[in-house]
């Protein structure tokens, strides 16, 4: 039973061509996260939504945007991808508040290639 779903699994785009990555969840969690993971590195948090409230990390480039039209879906938009944006992008969710709310459940990731 897939709980956090990411589409597509592999995405190829051209330098400067906008691209959108998709994440959906069946857990009804209030919080959704986007991480960037470059080769042989730990995931790096880009931003997260707490319900409809958007929380951007201080060092996330302006090139990265996100939308969350409803509880189930969250999108990552890269407005002008550069070669340095090639990475695995991971979506995660967690439920709202209380004991154990800090457990994050990850999707399988989208591998982005920039040509």
């Amino acid at each position, binding site marked *: 039973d897939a709980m*956090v779903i*990411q589409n597509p699994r592999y995405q190829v785009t051209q330098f400067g061509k906008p691209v959108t990555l998709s994440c959906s969840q069946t857990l009804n969690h209030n*919080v959704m996260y986007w991480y960037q993971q470059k080769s*042989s*590195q*730990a*995931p790096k*948090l880009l931003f*997260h939504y*707490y319900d409809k409230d958007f929380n951007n990390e201080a060092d996330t480039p302006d090139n990265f945007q996100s939308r969350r039209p409803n509880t189930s879906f969250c999108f990552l938009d890269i407005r002008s991808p550069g070669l340095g944006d090639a990475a*695995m992008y*991971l979506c*995660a969710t*967690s439920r*709202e*508040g*209380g*004991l*154990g*709310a*800090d*457990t*994050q*459940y*990850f*999707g*399988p*990731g989208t*591998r982005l290639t920039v040509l």
Partner: protein
Amino acid sequence: AQSVTQLDSHVSVSEGTPVLLRCNYSSSYSPSLFWYVQHPNKGLQLLLKYTSAATLVKGINGFEAEFKKSETSFHLTKPSAHMSDAAEYFCVVSETLGGSQGNLIFGKGTKLSVKP
């Protein structure tokens, strides 16, 4: 500020021998600690978590970890390695304070290789 140190970037074991992946943390508060596993080109899968209950935590696939406050450690162990255990393992501490939502602080990861 909270931080996580994974003491080994790469661990290699033979199939059937014990696994030990080391993790030390620093935290100003009672931490939540996690181990996640990541197979190549896959997302992160939760192996186990500690949240101030029993200090010996059992996870999936035969893994367990012991929270030792005096040593600020949360090492991951498995009695007998299997070829399918070959993956990257991340030790993670949560910045959660008092039950409120917080971010995850990741260690740099330990790559586990399993030799036949």
